[in-house]
């Protein structure tokens, strides 16, 4: 498992300097680390977070948005009719609840359809793993700069150390 502080430091090294989002238990360790570093701006909905990221990007920041994959549904219109069409990139750090059907019922449909949903939305995505972390982040940075649209890193359970390991 990747330590949260290692992951946050890797994002900072990539140039990310504006973090917002809505929590998920799988992202708890990352958010705690971001709060310790005073880097996190708490949002109340994922579409708000994505829109704040768009504003921050236009004001010169490199933004990342943390969310549970349920929040992908909430932010869908903002991603499509703001970030995508206006070319306002951000890094989406999305926890993959419902992966392989092993989760509470409310997560199962989104857990199964998320990759297709992202493909349909034409949002580039990768699933993070400990072995490929450095390469995954390099890919995120390159895609962000080249395509100038939101790019997603999917985070499954057990990849990054949470609050309760």
């Amino acid at each position, binding site marked *: 498992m990747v330590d949260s502080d290692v992951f946050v430091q890797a994002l900072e090294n990539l140039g990310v300097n504006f973090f917002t989002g809505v929590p998920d238990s799988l992202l708890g360790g990352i958010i705690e680390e971001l709060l310790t570093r005073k880097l996190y701006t708490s949002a109340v909905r994922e579409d708000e977070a994505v829109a704040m990221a768009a*504003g921050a990007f236009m004001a010169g920041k490199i933004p990342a948005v943390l969310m549970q994959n349920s929040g992908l549904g909430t932010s869908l219109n903002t991603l*499509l009719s703001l970030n995508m069409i206006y070319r306002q990139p951000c890094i989406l750090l999305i926890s993959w609840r419902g992966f392989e059907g092993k989760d509470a019922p409310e997560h199962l449909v989104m857990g199964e359809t998320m990759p297709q949903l992202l493909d349909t939305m034409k949002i580039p995505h990768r699933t993070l793993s400990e072995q490929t972390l450095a390469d995954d982040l390099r890919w995120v940075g390159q895609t962000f700069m080249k395509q100038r649209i939101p790019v997603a890193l999917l985070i499954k359970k057990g990849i990054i150390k949470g609050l309760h390991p």
Partner: protein
Amino acid sequence: MRPEQGTMQSRAQAMAALLELLTDQPVIICNGFPSREAQKLADRPTHFYMIGSMGNAAAIGLGVALSKPSKKVIVFDGDGNVLMGMGTLATVGALRPKNFIHVVFDNEVYGSTGNQPTISNVVQLEKVAKAAGYVTVERVLDREDLVYEFKDMLKNDGPSMLLVKVNEFVEDAGRIALEPPAITARFMKAIE
């Protein structure tokens, strides 16, 4: 029944009065007719015209305001938009960015889709903002009060909400001329 009607200005008249007081401040303008009217009244590179993502104007403005604390950031919003993204009033109220001015043109209708009623005739949005933690909120009707309060908000620390009651009149204004990526690029350069 809209008892206040008749004493009010149109949104375009109110917007024109505010734009006269602005120079190079970033202005985020919500989707629908407000962006089109702003473009017609004064097309400045510091204007960010939204064409979609209804409800997100204040959140975009907040992202700019937090990242550029030295600039006053103005959001031109509508009652339907504020109601849709009402959670953002709480986020603004909690973060209290001093450089954030939230103007709400309240015509009590979804004007861009055919004047269906909103619920801002009974829900006083500036009171919601005040309860959420905005430092200053004002509700105005006529041009004189509008200009007075806006000048005050430009001078003082916020976050502030200026709710201006406007009538339903819509200016004959064309669609946003620039393509969305060009709006982004122009705005970014202008507020650098």
